[in-house]
C-alpha cells in the first residue's frame, strides 16, 4: 500500500516537475511568476485532445504537434502580454497574466464546453506488476517520457550555445545583453520550452485521469508553483526535485489523511516553505537592495 502510493506519487510528481520547469525558467529570467502557466498547460491538454479525437492522430505525433503549438502560444503570450510591460511596476505584469489566464480558460470553455472530456485512447490499459507494485502502461510512459524530457532539457541548458546563453540571461539580463546575447530571444525560448513541457504534461494527465476540463490548469498551476518554490524558484534541478517531492507528499497525504483536501496539503506546504525557507532547496538568496 505504502509503496504503491509512493509510485503513484512519483507519477504525479514528475508531471508537477514538468509544469514547474515552466514557472522556474520564466522566473529565472524575468523574475515574474507567469500566472497564466496553469492555463497554458490546460490548453496543451485540450490541443492534444483535439489532435487525437478530432484529427485521429496517433499519440506520439500528437505530443509533438501539441507541444509545438503550445510553445507558439507561450511565445505569443509573452510578446503580447508581458513584453510591453517589462519596465512597469512588478504588480502590472501579474495582473496582465491574470487577464491572459481568464481569456484562455473562457476561450477553451467557449470552444470545447465546460464539461469533462474523456481522452480517447486505448493506450494505458495494460498493467505491469513487480512484486506488490502495479504500474499501468500510462504510468510507465509518464515516468519515461518525463525523465527523457528533463534529461534533454538539462543537456540543452548545459551543452548547447542557446542553453548557455539562456543561463547567462537568467544570471543577469543587462550583462547578458552587453555580452551580445539577444535577451528577448532568450526570453522567448524560455517561454517556448516551458509551454511545450506543460503541453506534454497536460496530455499525459489527460490520459492518466482520462479527463480533460477547462479549469484543470488552476489547481495544477498552484501545485506546480509550490513545487517550483519548494525546489527553489529559478533553479531547474530544483523544480525537478520539488515536483517529485510534492507529488509524493501529496499522494501519501491524500491516501492517509483525506483525498478531499488533497490540494490543501500542497497549499500548506507552500505557506510553510515560504515562511521557513523562501529560497527553497536549491534556491539562491536574493539580496534586497535598499
Amino acid at each position, binding site marked *: 500500500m505504502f509503496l504503491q502510493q509512493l509510485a503513484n506519487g512519483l507519477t504525479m510528481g514528475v508531471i508537477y516537475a514538468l509544469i514547474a520547469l515552466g514557472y522556474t525558467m520564466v522566473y529565472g529570467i524575468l523574475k515574474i511568476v507567469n500566472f497564466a502557466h496553469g492555463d497554458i498547460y490546460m490548453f496543451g491538454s485540450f490541443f492534444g485532445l483535439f489532435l487525437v479525437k478530432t484529427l485521429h492522430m496517433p499519440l506520439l505525433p500528437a505530443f509533438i504537434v501539441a507541444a509545438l503549438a503550445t510553445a507558439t502560444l507561450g511565445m505569443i503570450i509573452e510578446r503580447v502580454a508581458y513584453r510591453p510591460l517589462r519596465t512597469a511596476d512588478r504588480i502590472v505584469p501579474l495582473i496582465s497574466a491574470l487577464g491572459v489566464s481568464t481569456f484562455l480558460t473562457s476561450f477553451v470553455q467557449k470552444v470545447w464546453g465546460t464539461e469533462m472530456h474523456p481522452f480517447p485512447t486505448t493506450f494505458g490499459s495494460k498493467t505491469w506488476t513487480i512484486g506488490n507494485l502495479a504500474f499501468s502502461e500510462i504510468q510507465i510512459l509518464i515516468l519515461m517520457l518525463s525523465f527523457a524530457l528533463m534529461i534533454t532539457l538539462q543537456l540543452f541548458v548545459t551543452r548547447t550555445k542557446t542553453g548557455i546563453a539562456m543561463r547567462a540571461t537568467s544570471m543577469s539580463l543587462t550583462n547578458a545583453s552587453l555580452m551580445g546575447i539577444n535577451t528577448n530571444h532568450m526570453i522567448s525560448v524560455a517561454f517556448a520550452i516551458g509551454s511545450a513541457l506543460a503541453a506534454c504534461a497536460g496530455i499525459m494527465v489527460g490520459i492518466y485521469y482520462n479527463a480533460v476540463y477547462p479549469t484543470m490548469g488552476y489547481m495544477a498551476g*498552484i501545485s506546480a508553483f509550490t513545487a517550483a518554490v519548494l525546489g527553489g524558484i529559478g533553479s531547474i534541478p530544483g523544480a525537478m526535485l520539488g515536483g517529485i517531492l510534492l507529488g509524493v507528499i501529496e499522494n501519501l497525504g491524500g491516501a492517509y489523511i483525506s483525498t478531499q483536501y488533497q490540494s490543501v496539503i500542497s497549499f500548506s506546504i507552500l505557506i510553510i516553505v515560504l515562511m521557513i525557507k523562501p529560497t527553497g532547496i536549491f534556491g539562491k538568496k536574493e539580496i534586497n537592495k535598499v
Partner: protein
Amino acid sequence: MKLKNYSKLLAGVLLLTLPLFLQQMNDYVLHIAITVGIYIILSLSLNIIIGYAGQFALGHAAFYGIGAYASALLMLHWNVSFWVALPAAAIITGLFGLLLGSPVIRLRGDYLGIVTLGFGEIVRLVFVNWVDVTRGPMGLPGIPAPTLFGYTFTEKTDFYYLILVLAAITIFVVHRIIHSGIGLNLLTIREDETLAQSIGIRPVKYKLMAFALGAFFAGVAGAFWASYISYISPDGFRYMDSVNILAMVILGGAASIPGSILGAVILVLAPELLRYVNDYRMMLMGVAIVLMMIFKPSGFWGEKHRKTNFYRLQRGERKP
C-alpha cells in the same frame, strides 16, 4: 455651495428616488441596481488591500463567501436576527482576514497572490466538503430576509434602500480611513516599505489592518447577499468571482474610491447590456485586463498622484 457639492446632492436625491421612477418597470432594473451596490462594497473592500496597502490579494471571493455562510448559518441555526448576523458575519470574516494575513503578510507580491489564490480554493473546498454544516454542493436554502419593527423585507425596493445605506456607509468609512493617519501610513508603506520602517511605521501591523478591513467589508457584502437571494451555494464564490472583483478594482482604478464605484458599475452593467455576447464575457474581460495594463495601468479613474511628491523627492524621480 460649490458645484461639486451640488452634483453630489443631485446624485444622492436621484439614487434615493430611483425606485419611484421604476415603478412601471419590472424588478429587473432594481435587481441590477442592488447587484451594483453589492459589487461597489466588494470592489472597495478589495481596493483597501490592493490599492491602498499595495497587497496583491487574489482570493476575495473567499471572504465574500465566508461572510455569506457565516451570516446564513447564524440565522438558520441560532435564529439570530439579520441586524445582529450582518455585523457578526463581518467581524468573523475580518478575523479570517487576520488569520490568513498573519502568516503570509510578509510575502512579496506574486507569492502573496498565489497564496491568497490557494486560500480561496481551500475555503471553497471547505464549503463543498463540510456537508454537515454547509450541506455541501446542495447549498443553504431558506435564508430569512431582514425584518424591521415587525416589517419583513419582501420587495426589491426594501433591499435597494438597504444596500444603498450599506454602500454609503462603506464609501464613507473607506474615505475616512484613507484620509486618516492609518491611510497615510498605508500609502507610505505602499510607496516605500523600507522608508516607512525607517520613520517608525510598522508595515506588518498596517498591512494586517488593511487585510482585516478588506475582509470585513467583503463579509458585509456576503451577509447582505445571503439574505437578499435567500439561497447560497459554493458555486457563488469561485476563483472567477475573485477575478471579477479584481477586474473592477483594476479597470476602475486602484487606490481610488470613485474608480472602484465606476469599475463595479461598468462590470455589472456591461454583461447585462451586451447579453448577446454573454458567452464571450470572460474572454473580453481577459483581453480588457491585458489592454488596460498595457495602455492605462492606473485604470479609468485612477489615483491622480500615483506617487506622492515626498516619495519622488526622496528618489529623485521625475516621472510620476
